[in-house]
């Protein structure tokens, strides 16, 4: 029988644990690890480390399905970012992360700090960030607050990236009512490092000092990680103080200082104080290296004196790093940060005992076994169940296209398929002078200075497909990214993902998650693309209504020679247009049904991975040989939308004849693209297509001021300039700008 005071204390611990979001069985697990009741600071630390956001407790078992290794992968998931060898002595370091919850509460700062966090994940690896992408999902523009959210998120991303001087070279934006109560803001960053200079966040060397560098610690962002592990309700507005505030100037200075400090050779490891701040950076870095540490909170630079140990450990103030220096060479590190005018303070050292010991005012306020806490968190195998009406959802409605010309204009007039230039014009996409193809094409293309080579970057996902058939949706996201890269001649070297879903405690959401991940895994294995980093964001739901499953894929590819880069638009009149792939008139989940008829139904298109692989190989070959001036894939809105997009670039129309019904012009059958080339190349292109086993047809010619598509039983005929106007003004018009 426990004595009365002990029982009282245990009850108090349980109450505190519940307040921190630690479940009853998780508290029991912690008690078992420690062999005692945790203190209040220890409870705060562990509840953050074991939050969904930090521990991946509901996703770990599924993430193990994704292939993560490959001949060029240097660092896979588990590090701050993935690292892939891209030749010529260069390594590409990249990762994508979500900042959905804070962006919904406070869009400007939420999105800005999302960019800041992902940049730090990249430069802690010793890589200079050279490109950003973002993948955004907003609700209906008529929903409350939605225009404010769009404006705030775009300004937040722009102001942060522009100031730091890293170009935002591409991305994607979608609109759907399922995001009315939760927006998706996924930021991707890519950095370059010399192969011998890649850093990891593995603490090593007992006695090596721990340095705190960057901004001072304040009260902002406390509980950010736990906030990102909960659904929204009527009280969410009260969570505004959990959103951090960004300072891109400090970030820029911190970036330069960190890279310079790393070059001295006096730095062992660095980790960003991201989610759960000093807690996650100290515990995770020590855990990777199998070390312990002493941390003295009195040495942490503070914005105000009265912060409690709990607040110091859990603050998510931005632009801060924890750094392990080499003992005896501390001065070299300190000098660099002082030169850049940043805080630099020795806050502790590494130990061999494997314990995280935290001191405040000379008292030890926490002592936790590092590895047991970091690796010993709970892991959940959540129940999964498909929705009961799946079969009904897959029934195709019979809604044929009657007037293809009007249908095309209607699709291009939606914010969904309209130009996104209003967004990306607010992002500096040409700073650093590496941007060969910026936003608006199939994939962004970066020059690798000093080489002939380049990198292709793309972000893709179709949440409607994922909602209707998550397995196919997962496969499609990967396949489309491979296809987009192939259009610029890039061979994939790896991908990073952001898996945005509702509550994993809902069996239907967990089924969506599981199916999406399995679909992605199948496509990654078949198309040989390793997953080198990523992030999971659950609890994107409000009042029990989850977002559409949104497994965003950002993929990086290598272009061996930039001399012959095909464009996503027509470049010269007289070029022949060759359609690659074969249509199966798949209208399920199509943009046509959704945007013209308001119907979200039917089984999304099948994803034939072997056909995708053949098409991608052919496109890469054609790009490498320099035979094609234009290459553009067929995606949402099918052939009609794709041809219109290609016409807009230089205002060059096209005249095309295809054996397709008016409806089939908007079919979204996968593994399709078209290329355009001088007539002299036509025969060779058709021969190559046959050699690679890709169905190919010479369908028409570039030129004129009209887009004309003759099909079976109808002609689409539209003035390119008139269509372009509709397309270009769609988004600003919908935003009321």
């Amino acid at each position, binding site marked *: 029988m426990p004595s009365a005071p002990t029982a009282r204390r245990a009850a108090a611990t349980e109450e505190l644990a519940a307040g921190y979001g630690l479940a009853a069985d998780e508290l029991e697990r912690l008690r078992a690890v420690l062999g005692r009741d945790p203190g209040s600071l220890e409870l705060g630390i562990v509840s953050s480390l074991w939050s969904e956001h930090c521990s991946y407790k509901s996703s770990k078992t599924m993430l193990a399905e994704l292939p993560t290794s490959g001949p060029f992968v240097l660092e896979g998931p588990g590090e701050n970012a993935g690292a892939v060898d891209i030749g010529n002595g260069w390594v590409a370091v990249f990762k994508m992360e979500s900042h959905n919850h804070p962006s919904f509460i406070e869009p400007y700062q939420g999105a800005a700090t999302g960019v800041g966090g992902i940049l730090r994940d990249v430069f802690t690896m010793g890589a200079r960030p050279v490109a950003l992408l973002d993948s955004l999902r907003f609700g209906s523009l008529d929903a409350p607050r939605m225009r404010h959210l769009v404006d705030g998120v775009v300004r937040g991303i722009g102001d942060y990236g522009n100031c730091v001087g890293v170009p935002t070279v591409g991305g994607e934006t979608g609109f759907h009512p399922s995001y009315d109560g939760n927006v998706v803001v996924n930021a991707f960053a890519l950095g370059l490092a010399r192969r011998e200079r890649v850093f990891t966040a593995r603490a090593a060397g007992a006695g090596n000092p721990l340095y705190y560098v960057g901004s001072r610690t304040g009260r902002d962002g406390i509980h950010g990680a736990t906030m990102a592990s909960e659904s929204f309700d009527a009280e969410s507005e009260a969570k505004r103080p959990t959103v951090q505030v960004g300072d891109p100037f400090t970030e820029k200075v911190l970036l330069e200082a960190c890279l310079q400090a790393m070059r001295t050779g006096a730095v062992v490891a660095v980790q960003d104080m991201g989610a759960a701040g000093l807690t996650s950076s100290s515990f995770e870095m020590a855990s990777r290296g199998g070390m312990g540490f002493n941390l003295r909170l009195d040495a942490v630079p503070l914005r105000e004196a009265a912060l409690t140990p709990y607040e110091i450990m859990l603050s998510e103030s931005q632009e801060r790093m924890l750094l392990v220096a080499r003992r005896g060479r501390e001065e070299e590190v300190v000098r660099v940060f002082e030169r850049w005018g940043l805080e630099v303070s020795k806050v502790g050292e590494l130990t061999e005992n494997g314990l995280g010991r935290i001191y405040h005012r000379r008292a030890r306020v926490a002592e936790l076994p590092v590895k047991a806490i970091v690796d010993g968190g709970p892991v959940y195998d959540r129940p999964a169940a498909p929705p009961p009406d799946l079969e009904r959802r897959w029934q195709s409605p019979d809604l044929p296209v009657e007037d293809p010309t009007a249908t095309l204009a209607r699709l291009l007039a939606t914010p969904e398929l309209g130009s996104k230039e209003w967004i990306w014009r*607010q992002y500096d996409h040409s700073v650093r002078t590496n941007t060969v193809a910026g936003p608006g094409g199939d994939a962004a293309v970066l020059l690798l200075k000093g080489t002939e080579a380049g990198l292709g970057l793309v972000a893709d996902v179709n949440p409607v497909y994922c909602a209707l058939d998550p397995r196919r949706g997962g496969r499609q996201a990967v396949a489309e990214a491979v296809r987009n890269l192939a259009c610029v001649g890039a061979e994939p070297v790896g991908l990073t993902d952001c898996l945005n879903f509702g509550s994993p405690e809902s069996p239907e959401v967990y089924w969506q998650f599981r199916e999406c991940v399995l679909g992605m895994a199948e496509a990654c294995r078949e198309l040989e693309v390793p997953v080198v980093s990523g992030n999971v964001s659950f609890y994107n739901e409000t009042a029990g209504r989850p977002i559409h499953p949104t497994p965003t894929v950002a993929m990086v590819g290598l272009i061996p020679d930039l001399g012959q880069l095909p464009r996503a638009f027509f470049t010269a009149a007289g070029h022949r247009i060759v359609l690659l792939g074969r249509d199966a008139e798949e209208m399920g989940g199509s943009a046509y049904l959704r945007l013209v008829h308001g119907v979200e139904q039917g089984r999304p298109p099948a994803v034939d991975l072997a056909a995708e692989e053949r098409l991608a190989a052919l496109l890469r070959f054609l790009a490498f040989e320099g035979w094609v001036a234009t290459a553009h894939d067929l995606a949402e809105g099918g052939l009609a939308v794709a041809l219109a997009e290609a016409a807009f670039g230089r205002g060059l129309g096209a005249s095309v004849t295809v054996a397709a019904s008016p409806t089939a012009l908007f079919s979204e059958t996968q593994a399709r693209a078209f290329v355009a080339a001088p007539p002299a190349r036509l025969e060779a292109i058709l021969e190559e297509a046959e050699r690679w086993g890709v169905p190919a047809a010479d369908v028409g010619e570039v030129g004129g001021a009209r887009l004309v598509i003759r099909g079976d039983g109808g002609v689409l005929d539209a003035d390119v300039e008139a269509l372009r106007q509709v397309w270009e003004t769609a988004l600003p018009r919908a935003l009321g700008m």
Partner: protein
Amino acid sequence: MRCGVVVFPGSNCDHDVYHVLKHVLGQDAVFLWHDEADLHGCDLVVLPGGFAYGDYLRAGAMAALSPIMAEVRRHAAAGGPVLGICNGFQMLLEAGLLPGAMRRNRDLRFLCQDVWLRVERDDLAFTSRYARGQVLRMPIAHAEGNYVDRDEALDALEKAGGVVFRYASPGGETAEGWNPNGSARAIAGVVNAGGNVLGMMPHPERCAEQVLGGEDGLGLFASLVAAAVEVRHA
């Protein structure tokens, strides 16, 4: 030519200008540190784009007070060439080395896009490789590029030949629709009375290699190199 690119905390186009001078044009280029009152014998001083000190005050206001700026003033007073691009232009205005001021862009948003510039002066060390009336295509990337001054001051500036570049149509016509940020009289670049201090909002360093889509900016740097050679031979 020895070229110094000043690095302020928050400069972010410093490497881009350095790259063009050093690797595209093969000049001797060095970085100069904002906190050091020393130009290390540079013939050309470039104030690059970026967000010096975060531009949390008016753009360029704090940078204009950096220790190195006293040396930049001395260099300019002695007739040495000074080029300010974007944030560097804003600094030159704040430092009083060029007339006028910047406001937020007309639609209050950051703008990154290509613009067309009409060359108004081809008799400067900065523009000898261009022809008067020539139209250049260059990127802009700024939120505060809306050039403004009193009408009399603008008249005086025009009269003195202080306007070097104007936003224009691809055919060289100035019209409101081709002026991206609302600048008075479509002014995109300004030179001082001595013809040796140029400030411009567009980024010539971002269009100095064909692989990046255009080389219209290269002429500006090539003009400076040619002028430096002439000086040496004189």
